[in-house]
């Protein structure tokens, strides 16, 4: 195995992904949200009517593309493998609370990078929490944390999740009356690139992430655990290329794609403590899951039903967050959201303890 080649590949992939993310905003996605797995799963949950927050309802083709891009490449490369059975309900709960953390911060780890690339310094507090959460997870990993092994499943079990994406895509295009779409000017859900552009962007990023094993959590985790920088290099490449692309777009179009500071950032709030704690919950939960929300989507495309269950946990978490007023807004976090994040940190810590110290 050629380590140098692997690193070059992930850096190139990261550079491409950063440009795509920046261009998606140019083509219509919300600012600093070319990609956001948490926000897009939340919007999709709204589009399917699982929550009724009118501002955030749209079936995001990027999500569909990510899963199908990974699925396609995994098939071609003969890496598709239906497997599962490693504590699926625990993973569902972890996914649920990871989403609660994401919607406290207003973004997944991927969007955290894109917020930084857009000059949103609130994301630095998020990054601090994210690193602290990962360190907490690594503490348990070093002491034997495990959700136990997976087992081979029927091929059908691995294919169902990609098939669901096709069905959801048909619902997006057919737009029957029971699917919800945020009305024009009604919020972030109304801001989106054309369906074909979003889908193609998702397919490309899904394929690249599958080949390179790109993972935002894995980047920091592997450096701490093994002094292995490969995944972190992908993380850094996305930041650099999205930043450069934002600056170029700002110069070329006269519209601001980069605004440095804390105040008045798009789809963000300035409560540093809760930005930090939200992402702490995300980092901690994702280390216990073995990967960030992006990686869970990619793995679900490879036939991993545990990751598919995790994504379902993320979706249900998003629905709960908006049905019960847990999600933050530009005005800041809600009281209920703060309680939910604290509960989430406690639950994730309990899951970590119980799967580390009481497993024999």
């Amino acid at each position: 195995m050629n380590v140098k080649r692997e690193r070059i590949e992930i850096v190139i992939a990261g550079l491409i992904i950063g440009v795509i993310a920046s261009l998606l905003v140019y083509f219509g996605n919300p600012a600093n949200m070319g990609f956001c797995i948490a926000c897009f799963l939340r919007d999709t949950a709204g589009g399917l009517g699982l929550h009724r927050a009118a501002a955030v309802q749209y079936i995001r083709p990027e999500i569909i593309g990510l899963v199908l891009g990974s699925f396609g490449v995994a098939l071609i490369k003969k890496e598709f493998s239906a497997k599962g059975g490693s504590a699926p309900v625990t993973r569902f709960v972890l996914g649920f609370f990871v989403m609660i953390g994401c919607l406290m911060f207003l973004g997944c780890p991927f969007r955290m990078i894109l917020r930084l690339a857009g000059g949103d310094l609130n994301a630095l507090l998020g990054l601090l929490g994210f690193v602290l959460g990962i360190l907490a997870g690594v503490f348990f990993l070093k002491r034997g944390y495990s959700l136990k092994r997976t087992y081979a499943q029927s091929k059908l079990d691995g294919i169902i999740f990609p098939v669901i994406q096709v069905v959801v895509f048909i619902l997006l295009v057919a737009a029957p009356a029971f699917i919800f779409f945020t009305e024009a000017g009604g919020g972030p859900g109304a801001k989106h690139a054309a369906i074909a552009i979003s889908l193609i962007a998702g397919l490309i990023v899904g394929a690249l992430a599958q080949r390179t094993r790109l993972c935002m959590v894995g980047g920091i985790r592997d450096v701490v655990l093994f002094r292995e920088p490969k995944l972190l290099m992908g993380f850094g490449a996305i930041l650099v290329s999205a930043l450069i692309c934002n600056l170029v777009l700002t110069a070329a179009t006269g519209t601001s794609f980069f605004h440095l500071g804390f105040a008045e950032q798009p789809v963000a709030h300035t409560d540093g403590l809760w930005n930090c704690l939200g992402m702490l919950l995300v980092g901690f939960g994702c280390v216990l899951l073995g990967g960030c929300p992006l990686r869970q989507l990619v793995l679900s495309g490879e036939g991993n039903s545990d990751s598919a269950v995790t994504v379902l946990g993320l979706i249900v978490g998003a629905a709960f967050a908006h049905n019960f007023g847990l999600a933050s807004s530009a005005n800041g976090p809600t009281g209920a959201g703060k309680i939910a994040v604290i509960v989430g940190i406690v639950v994730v810590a309990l899951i970590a303890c119980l799967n580390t110290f009481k497993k024999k």
Partner: protein
Amino acid sequence: MKVIDARGLSCPEPVVLLRSVMESNEDAYQIIVDNHASRENTTRYAQHQGYQVAVAENGGEWTLTFTK
């Protein structure tokens, strides 16, 4: 030679196991994995530790032998 059965485990667990076993600093280890990411990650880790890697594939499982 110490043999680690990491089948069914997803990353980073196989590498964590390998790292802990390699603390004994022996000349050879073997690990069995059943997914591509684990194969790549354990190989990379062992190479960083100065081991040569030999791979034998058997129906979706890989037996990696690390020797110094």
